[in-house]
């Protein structure tokens, strides 16, 4: 479903009764978008718990993400091009990373703990796979979405292709949002149910003198 249409549909349900100032304020598009985002996180997490590989469909691909090298630490890194959903797994919402035009280098998600010890292991000495660690933004950095650090024995490519499970707010209004089958009405109902309006109170009591 197109993102704009989804937001409009939900607003329409919220405003189905007479649109008052209160309801129009609460059903503001930007607010509805944030509510959808938090609901999507819940739905994606439920999918992740059942079969994580099913999340391939919901990833968004970003091409030509540059691989940079920090001057002081010489660590290779990429700024995440979008905000990702945080899953309780290594790699978070960074679903996969590949070279632009080949699948030569394997990019493998790992933890900081793995990085510390891996160089001493048999695999650390011979593998050409590149490990990546998803981290928050560097101190004083401008990478608001976080960064991905790379570690490995191979030559780092200059550009990579990333598949990310992005936050709902990262989709353009004109983009088609993949919604899990059977979850579209659930999604709408979950959000609309948060907007349970009470009858507006009369400001004055005409019976009072």
């Amino acid at each position, binding site marked *: 479903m197109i993102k704009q249409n989804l937001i409009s549909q939900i607003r329409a349900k919220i405003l189905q009764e007479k649109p008052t100032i209160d309801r129009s304020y609460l059903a503001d598009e930007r607010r509805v978008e944030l509510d959808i985002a938090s609901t999507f996180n819940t739905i994606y997490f439920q999918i992740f718990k059942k079969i994580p590989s099913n999340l391939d469909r919901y990833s968004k691909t970003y091409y030509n993400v540059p691989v940079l090298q920090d001057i002081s630490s010489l660590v290779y890194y990429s700024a995440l091009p979008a905000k990702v959903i945080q899953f309780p797994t290594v790699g978070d919402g960074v679903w996969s990373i590949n070279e632009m035009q080949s699948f030569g280098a*394997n990019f493998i998600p790992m933890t900081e703990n793995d990085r510390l010890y891996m160089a001493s*292991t048999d*695999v*650390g000495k*011979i*593998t*050409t796979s590149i490990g990546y660690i998803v981290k928050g933004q560097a101190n004083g950095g401008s990478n608001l979405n976080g960064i991905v650090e790379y570690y490995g024995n191979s030559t780092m490519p200059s550009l990579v292709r990333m598949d990310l499970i992005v936050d709902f707010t990262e989709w353009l209004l004109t983009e088609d949002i993949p919604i899990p089958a059977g979850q579209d009405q659930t999604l709408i109902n979950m959000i609309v149910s948060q907007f349970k309006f009470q009858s507006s109170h009369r400001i004055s009591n005409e019976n009072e003198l």
Partner: protein
Amino acid sequence: MDTSGVNTLKDIVNTVLFNTGHDKSEFMYIYNYVISAIREIHMLHTNKYKVSKVDVNMNTFTIDWPDDYLGLVYLGIPIGGKIWTLTREDEIVTTTTMINGQETLTTNMGEGIPIGRGQRYGYGATGGKNKYYYTSDEINRRFFINGVNLQFANVVLAYRSSGVEDENTLIPIKYYLSIEFYTRWRIEQRKDSGNLNNAQYWRSEYDKEISQLKAFESPTLDEIYDAFYKVCSGTYQR
């Protein structure tokens, strides 16, 4: 043509991941277990070994172990197109003396003195004895060799190694199931909430597969016949 009899180490790892359904986040752990499995198979369960020509240090009559050396199969020298193995003799003197920073042998300490061959002719002859001997100096990762007229600069060393050089090392496919079961067993052990029954199950599957691998690698009937015939020699015909 049928499927290949070998596969690269990296492809073996990817196949294990594919068959076990583990996430790519476990790639490095599984890779490490696969390497351990191959090392264990080569060390303990197969008759495969590496053969290389190694240099003899003529100052000390020692042979340094290669970096990938795990265990000895044989040490030998070529004579008449065949390998004649050296005889193990642990009473060889294995000390050396540093002179001007150079390691060398001092005969007054018995270092480097050839083990006698005994008298081969005449009264009191002891008969034929071995010619060349070796012993192992594990602390310094080397062999000492000894014998009369030690003049060869190289020997042939057959030894067990891990069998893994890099990720393109070719691994026989016949090892695959052993590798997979070993990996599954070690993954279960690794889990904090690991089920001991699962670990034991995969361990027993691994043991069964190793038994089958050994049976697969048993000598053929022809090879057994040849081993018997080798100790015999043909007689003349009148």
